[in-house]
């Protein structure tokens, strides 16, 4: 997950409202740095980073709400919605990854080891998707699912993949609606007032 960019051009003696606008503009730019990944539904990590950037902008608008223009409340609503849409998408991605690991691992020690290595590798590269502790716990061969349970998990995986497509479509549609009204420019204009 990309770290929030430190903002260097702040004047600590200036009114809070002046600096809050600079911070909000930076968080907005960070959000749009991930814009190029919106059309690719399977850039899971990049979409996750877009969500984190939306979250940072949202909290910036919230904590500085008293000193930002009132119109920022409308911006906040859109950003919250984007964050929620991407949040649901991320939840589905995590669950899909977990199910694939569960179903991909055999009930033997070898499959278990492989799955753990995969989970650790993802974390090691800083491209964290699954919580390795949880993956390890779930993939423990001592409590592996039975054949009937595995079949249920297969169905669940199919359902989740379908739901994920709908979630992505909902998010993308919203994103393009914002693009159509030049949301970025709209926010910058509000912050300039």
């Amino acid at each position: 997950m990309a770290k929030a960019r430190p903002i260097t051009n702040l004047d600590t003696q200036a009114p809070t409202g002046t600096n809050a606008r600079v911070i909000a503009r930076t968080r907005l730019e960070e959000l749009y740095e991930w814009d190029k990944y919106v059309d690719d539904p399977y850039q899971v990590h990049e979409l996750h980073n877009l969500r984190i950037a939306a979250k940072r902008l949202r909290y910036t608008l919230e904590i500085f709400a008293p000193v930002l223009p009132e119109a920022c409340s409308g911006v906040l609503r859109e950003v919250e919605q984007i964050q929620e849409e991407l949040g649901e998408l991320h939840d589905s991605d995590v669950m899909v990854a977990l199910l694939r690991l569960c179903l991909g691992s055999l009930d033997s020690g070898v499959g278990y080891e492989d799955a753990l290595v995969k989970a650790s590798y993802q974390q090691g590269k800083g491209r964290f998707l699954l919580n390795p502790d949880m993956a390890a716990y779930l993939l423990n061969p001592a409590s592996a699912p039975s054949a009937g349970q595995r079949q249920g998990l297969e169905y669940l995986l199919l359902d989740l993949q379908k739901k994920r497509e709908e979630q992505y479509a909902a998010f993308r549609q919203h994103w393009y609606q914002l693009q159509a009204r030049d949301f970025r420019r709209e926010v910058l204009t509000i912050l300039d007032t």
Partner: protein
Amino acid sequence: MGNQKVPTWAAIDIGSNTIRVVVARYISDHLEILATDEEMVRIGESVTSTGEISAQKSAAAIATLRAYKALAEQYAASPILAVATEAIRQAKNREEFLAGVLEATGLVVHLIEGDVEATLTFYGATCGLGKEAPVPARIGVMDLGGGSTELVLAKNMQMNWRISVPIGSGWIHDRYFHADPPTHDDLAVAATFLQTYVQGLRIKQRPPLLVVTGGSANALLRLARYAFHVSAQETHLTYEDLLRCEGLLSALPAQEIAERYKVPASRAEILPAGVLIIRTMMVHLQVREISISSHGIREGVLLAYARHGSQWLQRVRCSARDVTQEAVEVDAEISRAASESAEEPFDRSGHRMLLDRTRKMLERRDEVLKHEDVEAVHRMRVASRRLRAVLDAYESACNPKLFKKAYRCVKQLADMLGKARDTDVMIEHLRAQLEQTPAEEQLGIQWLIDRLSSYREQHQVVLEAFLKQIDEDAWKRKIVACLPVGGVENGKS
């Protein structure tokens, strides 16, 4: 036009879809309705697409308000009380619009906040309740508007929770539906969005009775009466009734619905969105049927006026504030902070905010340790995110070494809370899925729920151990110390 001794009043509400009026007499604690009217102006349509009330919508609204004023004057109604809600709240040119209305009609329109709207709706929608059947101790009232939806929960008719969400039937229609009738894909996308949104609302109680009010809810009742021969006296609709309505609305174009079932065409257009919102909320609240009230915000305005006279709006604002709800607390904090921080130098506001956000985050510790409410972890995690947002904002003004130390602590806590919350969310989603899954598929989901629950319990032990070792004062000192402030010594104000 009636007995001169009995007061006659009128109330108008300018909503996102509709402008409505009611003229009523107030006799021994109840309203006798003399006249009502409504016009679908759909102001919200232009606000959703451009952020402003267009000149055309403004002119249509003024024409309607002139006609309503004349109607009220026919009954010698005085005063005429007017309120405006979500679409006007969101419009960039709201001041200009309200000034235009005043100039053209002489009507003073009060722009009310979402919480006041919810309170007035509760007064109106419940005013006839209990006449025919006993009212359960806990009830919910939902006002489905064009641009927002208000939900109020009450115990023994005293409101104890409420929320106003900026999503209504007009808004969903304008944003998600591109065909008439809406396509299956459009409906699926809108349904996914609504499920996501509603899941994010932290509704703590599930009332056995849900009263729904608003134009779309009443139009659905009329549709069910015409189409499915639901009795004219019936004011309840079951979940199955709504599914049947939805089937009809997704099969026929709005014009045909309007002609066949005597629903105004502009209302018929947004009904698919209305039924979807109601159904989503019913599933979330686990209610099988709803009671539909033809009363709402306008009747609420008149009842508030009856109780409090010219101070009605101030008193309703106070009542709305008294209702305990987390979002209200946040809003109030923001308002308080506003007066303190507008011109406050950046370093001073940072010091205050760091201390305040740290305190708020640590206040949540006890409820997480109790491990009774699944939302406790979520609240503490959100508090930790707000604190991190403050730290991120002030990073360049901080002492780098002290900042790193403080940030690491907060991040460690946030990560632990994140693991707990993510698991809770997975379990919640799976439980919801379990209810809709055929028996042969449930085995796998149940296995996963059991494994995740067991992991969650194990993680709770680790989380509790971490939380218990936190020295609250030391954390506050550590976090505040990273931002040097002129005039503040050693981080103590």
